[in-house]
C-alpha cells in the first residue's frame, strides 16, 4: 500500500512541475538590462529630423521608452492605452520607432537607398501617429534597429521604465494592457517619483 502512495506522490509532483511549466510565458525573457544604465544612443527626432535625442537629455526625469513601428500589429492594440496614459499622467513617454521600413518585410531593401528609406520611414511614422494619436513627447527613429539590439529588443512593442538616474527599472515585452499599467507600471512610477 505504502509504495502506491509513493508513486502517486511522484506523479502529483510531476503534474505540478509540468503545470507550472505550461503556465510560464516562454516569450517573457527576463532582461539583464533591468538595474543597468539605459544604453546610450543619439537618434534623430521624428518631428524635427535635424535634432537628435539621447537618454542623457532625460536625466533627472522618470520616463518611459516605448518601442513601436507602424507595421507592428500588437502596437495597435496597446496604442489607445498609451494615448490615455499620456493624457492622464505627467510622465514623458519617448517613442523609439524600430525599423519602420526594413522591419515591415514588404520592401526589397536591396533596391532601396538610405535616403529613400529615411524619407519613407518618416512619412509612414508620421501618418500612423496622425491616424492613431500621438502619446509621445518625442519619437526617435531607429532605422536599422541597432539601438534596438542595444536595448535587447526582440518583440515589438516593448516598454522600458527609466528612473531619474538613467537606470532601467522595468522592461515589459508585448503590448501594455490596462492591467499591466495598473499593476506593474503605475506603482513603480509612483515609487520612483517619490
Amino acid at each position, binding site marked *: 500500500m505504502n509504495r502506491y502512495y509513493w508513486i502517486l506522490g511522484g506523479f502529483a509532483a510531476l503534474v505540478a512541475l509540468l503545470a507550472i511549466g505550461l503556465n510560464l510565458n*516562454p*516569450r517573457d*525573457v*527576463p*532582461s*539583464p*538590462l533591468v538595474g*543597468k544604465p539605459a544604453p546610450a544612443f543619439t537618434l534623430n527626432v521624428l518631428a524635427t529630423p535635424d535634432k537628435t535625442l539621447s537618454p542623457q537629455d532625460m536625466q533627472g526625469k522618470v520616463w518611459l521608452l516605448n518601442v513601436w513601428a507602424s507595421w507592428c500589429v500588437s502596437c495597435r492594440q496597446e496604442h489607445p492605452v498609451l494615448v490615455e496614459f499620456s493624457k492622464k499622467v505627467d510622465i514623458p513617454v519617448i517613442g523609439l520607432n524600430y*525599423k519602420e521600413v*526594413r*522591419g515591415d*518585410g514588404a520592401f526589397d531593401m536591396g533596391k532601396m537607398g538610405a535616403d529613400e528609406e529615411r524619407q519613407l520611414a518618416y512619412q509612414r511614422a508620421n501618418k500612423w501617429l496622425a491616424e492613431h494619436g500621438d502619446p509621445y513627447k518625442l519619437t526617435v527613429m531607429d532605422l536599422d*534597429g541597432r539601438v534596438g*539590439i*542595444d*536595448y*535587447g529588443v*526582440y*518583440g515589438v512593442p516593448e516598454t522600458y521604465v527609466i528612473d531619474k538616474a538613467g537606470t532601467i527599472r522595468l522592461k515589459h515585452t508585448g503590448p501594455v494592457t490596462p492591467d499591466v499599467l495598473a499593476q506593474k507600471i503605475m506603482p513603480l512610477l509612483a515609487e520612483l517619483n517619490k
Partner: protein
Amino acid sequence: MKRAALTLFFVLAGFFASTAGIASEINEAALAADPVAEKRLQALSAELRCLVCQNQTIADSNAELAQDLRREVRAMIRDGKSDQQIIDFMVTRYGDFVLYRPPVKGITLLLWGGPVVLLVLGLIVLIRYQRRRALRVAAQDKPLSADEASRAEALLKELDNK
C-alpha cells in the same frame, strides 16, 4: 493513390534538395570571401538562440532579428573581437537565454543536474526491485522440505489413482 503519394514524395524531395542547394551556395560564396571569419560566424551563430523563433539558433533562423544579430556578429569579427567578447555582447543584451548552452549556476542547477538525479533515482529503484525479486525467486527455488515432499507425493498418487 500509391502513384500520387510517390509523386508527392519526389516533388517534396526535389523542393528540399533545391532549397538546401541554394543555402549552401550562399554559404559557399560567403566562405570564399573570408573563410576564417565565416567559419567563426557560423560557429558563433550556432551557439546563439534566436529570440523570435525560440528553438532555432541564429544560424538556422531566417527571422529579421536573427539576420540583424548575424550582421552584428560579422561586424564584431571584422573589428577583431574575441569569441568571448561577442558572446558577452549578446548576454548583456538578451541574458543567458540567448545561449544555447546555458551556464551552470544556481538558477540552472535543476536544468543541468535534473537528468543525472533522475538517472540515479531510476537506478536505485531498479536495483532495489531486482534485489527483492532475486530474494523472492531464491525463496521459490528452495528444495522442498520433507513435509512438503511427502504432501506432494500424496497428491501425485491421488492423481494416478484417478
